[in-house]
């Protein structure tokens, strides 16, 4: 399974990343460019996901939905049947918003692994890297030959992309993980800006969104703190491009940025809740 994943996703990603590196000569910029490229390629999936989520939100804010919730409060089986009926009538599938995410997951994981492998910070990793560089890569540009690629110039700005990043400040007894903090902040901002308002602040969807807004920044902060800083560069770029994509689609919810409860309900949702 691991081999199939490597052959289909990780190795092509790694070679694409190395090819970009061969052209630009800076691994940090290569990560940024490749992240943008991957986000653009997966943009149609994201658009589909947003559309499905929006349709679901509208459905859940509708009076019909609220009514069946109220009517079947004590009968979960009946409620499920009614919900399925409405899904069918409206042509909405609850899985439509999950599917694009499911498709994006292997891409995200493959991209992460390709970054780590391409940096090759130990001899064992370099052995694996050398074996997975496509032989034809150097035909595209001599800068993609083995002798030109190895060693990867892993220095980017103040950081070594193969190591976790910390900045030592004179007078401070500990180093500051600047990049990990930026990862945490940008993840938080992205999550807050891109979570769509819920039909009801008390429903499970709103609670889940709130959890996401807390878990994801902490999780990615932890990764950025402990793993190669090349990964943190990817997280930050991905977050910023994600915000830009949502903004371009007019889906950024600026009002959420400094609100620390569930996302503010839309007016329509308020009326639905009143029933």
């Amino acid at each position, binding site marked *: 399974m691991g081999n199939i994943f490597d052959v289909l996703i990780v190795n092509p990603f790694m070679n694409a990343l190395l090819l970009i590196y061969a052209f630009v000569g800076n691994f940090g910029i290569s990560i940024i460019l490749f992240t943008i490229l991957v986000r653009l390629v997966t943009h149609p999936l994201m658009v589909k996901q947003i559309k499905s989520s929006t349709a679901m939100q509208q459905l859940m804010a509708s009076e019909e939905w609220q009514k069946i919730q109220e009517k079947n409060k004590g009968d979960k089986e009946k409620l499920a049947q009614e919900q399925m009926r409405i899904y069918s009538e409206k042509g909405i599938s609850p899985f439509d918003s999950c599917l694009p995410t499911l498709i994006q997951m292997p891409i995200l994981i493959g991209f992460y692994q390709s970054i780590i492998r391409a940096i090759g910070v130990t001899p064992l990793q370099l052995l694996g890297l050398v074996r997975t560089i496509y032989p034809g890569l150097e035909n595209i540009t001599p800068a993609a030959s083995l002798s030109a690629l190895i060693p990867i110039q892993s*220095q980017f700005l103040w950081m070594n992309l193969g190591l976790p990043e910390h900045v030592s400040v004179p007078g401070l007894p500990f180093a500051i993980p600047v990049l990990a903090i930026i990862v945490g902040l940008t993840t938080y901002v992205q999550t807050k800006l891109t979570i769509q308002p819920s039909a009801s602040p008390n429903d*499970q969807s709103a609670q889940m969104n709130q959890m996401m807004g807390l878990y994801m920044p902490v999780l990615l902060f932890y990764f950025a703190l402990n793993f190669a800083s090349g990964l943190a560069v990817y997280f930050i770029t991905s977050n910023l491009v994600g915000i830009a994509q949502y903004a371009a689609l007019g889906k950024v919810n600026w009002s959420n940025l400094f609100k620390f409860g569930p996302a503010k309900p839309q007016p329509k949702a308020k009326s639905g809740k009143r029933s």
Partner: protein
Amino acid sequence: MKFKRFFLFTLLALLAVFLTACGSAPASSWPGMAADADGTHVYLASGSYVYNVQVKDGSEVTVNTPDSATPVPARFPLKADGGKSFNAAPALTSDGQILIGSGATSDHTFYSYDPLTTNVKWTIPTNNSPWMTGALVIKDAVYAPGGDGNLYAYSLTGQQRWVSSISKHSLWSAPVTDAAGKLIYLVTLDHQVVAVNPANGKPAWTVTLDTSILGSPAVAGDMLVVGTLSGKLYALDQATGSQKWVSTLDGEIWGTPGYDGSNVYIGTVVNKAGKFYAVNASNGQTVWSKDDDGSITAGPLVTNDQIIYGTELGKIQSVDKTGTPKWQATIENAHMYTPPLLAGNMVIVAPMNATFLLAAYDLNGAQKWTFVAK
């Protein structure tokens, strides 16, 4: 909604598992080892510990501590703290110190410790980069190649003598010296061979080769023999760095060549397979070569009458000086990335992915013991 909540948690859990499975890199390297001068003890750097193993029977040396009523294994450190990782070959000094740097991402300290007590004697302060390879000891000084590309010179009491910038990249290969200890020779990932004056750290000469160099140079008479990732084997003059010959081999060279006074021996990596060569040290001509099913990353062990090398498929192969096989042994599912070592009259190997950390063979290939960390 329950499905959605379940989906979200599963997604995050999967993400965490997949991402952390790829782990912190510097811990995933092959082990390093060294034997003391009289061949009675082997020091194995593998993961969280440096083990002290007796060559006679493969048992671990023990030490008494105030915390335990019974003797405990004399490992360094006595208790793993998770922050240290050791994979370089330890360096041993004439006054009984063991020197080794931590290759972990969180601990970048170079340690001197007493193998009898495992107490730290002195350290080289953090240089913000993992120590990837072993140090060289010449008389009363230690020369430690850092992960920051610097070569650090310290006295055996831990006083810094000089620091010399060698490369923009991490130094992965241990330095070597000539018979008289006149110069220190280092190789770099950015294609260079550098000769450094041990007195002041100033480069005596620098030569740029065609690709990255991963194995340490072999001192062969008045020459240095160095292999590169492109499969080129170079012979350089020790005093000036001028090229005496170059030989192009099939595959990549990852290890340190062996030398027996007339031939140079080295294995190569030909994708997943390998090839082992004997090259005439005077002119670079191939004397003989052997194909192997497994790639050969580590340099060979050269004894009086045999050459012993390991392959990635877990095979230990002994051949005589004409390339005729003498004996072979295979460790199932293991990978041999660490060069075999001669300690006393035992050949010691440190396989990766085996059920034991060390195995000892006599010079006829009979396995004498294995060492499992308890």
